[in-house]
């Protein structure tokens, strides 16, 4: 890397990517032992683990960039609510199985495009992490795509549940395509991904899957953001309380 990259900016960017992965991984892990049947329970827990692994890679790198002595664990467990910068979509309660799969489809489609782009980053570490995660996301997409089609083109109840899920989460998807100033600056020097650029491709694929699932694309209109600024939904606090409980109760505890 050239020294034109501001370390603080890079730290914030990598940290936010780690937060996205950590928070979604935590949400998905709530399905462990509560899945609809054994095989799906295991498969979903595997996806959750992929995200936690992803979070570790980003946090480990963020800690290195920061160079202030904080570890990946400090970053994952030692911050307060406002210091987390994940997109709001990831922290929404897991809902029913249809909601979880609807969110996964949105996220998996997004991540396949995002990570493909990030694997061309000028930052070699980010490019390497992205290349690794891309393979996982391609597999996740296979799953969520199939489930959304199965539920959408299934019974009246499964159809209405997954349609409701998309209607509910739609307002949170716009934030994924809205870069903050920090990201924009890093995009200009070829480090970060231009998330506006992947929107069109995302739209096309999303619409095709929705059509196959006989679902309606929700209306645009209400849109919310704030995650990248550390402004969260109410549900985030209880998620964080559970996530951090062990390290708060026994600081520095190791397995």
């Amino acid at each position, binding site marked *: 890397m050239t020294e034109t990259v501001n370390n603080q900016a890079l730290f914030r960017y990598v940290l936010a990517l780690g937060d996205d992965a950590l928070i979604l991984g935590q949400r998905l892990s709530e399905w462990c032992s509560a899945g609809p049947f054994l095989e799906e329970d*295991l498969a979903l827990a595997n996806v959750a683990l992929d995200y936690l692994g992803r979070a570790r890679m980003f946090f480990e790198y963020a800690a290195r960039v920061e160079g202030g002595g904080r570890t990946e664990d400090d970053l994952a467990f030692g911050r307060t609510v406002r210091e987390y910068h994940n997109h709001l979509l990831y922290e929404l309660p897991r809902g029913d199985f249809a909601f979880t799969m609807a969110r996964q489809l949105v996220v998996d489609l997004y991540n396949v495009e995002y990570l493909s782009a990030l694997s061309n980053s000028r930052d070699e570490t980010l490019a390497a992490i992205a290349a690794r995660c891309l393979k996982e996301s391609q597999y996740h997409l296979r799953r969520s795509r199939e489930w959304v089609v199965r539920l959408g083109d299934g019974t009246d109840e499964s159809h209405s549940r997954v349609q409701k899920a998309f209607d509910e989460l739609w307002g949170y998807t716009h934030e994924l395509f809205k870069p903050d100033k920090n990201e924009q600056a890093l995009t200009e020097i070829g480090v970060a991904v231009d998330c506006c650029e992947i929107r069109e491709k995302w739209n096309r694929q999303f619409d095709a899957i929705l059509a196959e699932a006989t679902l309606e694309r929700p209306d645009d209109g209400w849109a919310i953001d704030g995650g990248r600024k550390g402004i969260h939904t109410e549900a985030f606090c209880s998620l964080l309380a559970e996530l951090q409980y062990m390290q708060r109760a026994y600081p520095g505890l190791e397995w």
Partner: protein
Amino acid sequence: MNKVEQSMKTVDHMPLFEVFIRSRRGLDHKHVGSLHANSSEQALEYARDCYTRRSEGGSIWVVRSSDIVASQEEDASSFHDPMDDKPYRHAAHYVLPDAISNM
């Protein structure tokens, strides 16, 4: 209905699949277990998630359990017993040349 009953009811509607995995090129696919899935494509994905997370395999086969035709206990006398008194069908008396080490 408790949770376990509910979950069993879910899989009642799903066919059972047998899973075979080949750990390395050149070896045979070995039966590793079974699982429930809604389609053969889904069965393949669940097989990946349930049986190969620790890189056990390079190739997976799934087949509907109902498509397997199996010999039955009552077939044993006509299928297997006649072989018992034909030791010459085994290679037991054949002495391996020294150069062959992997048999």
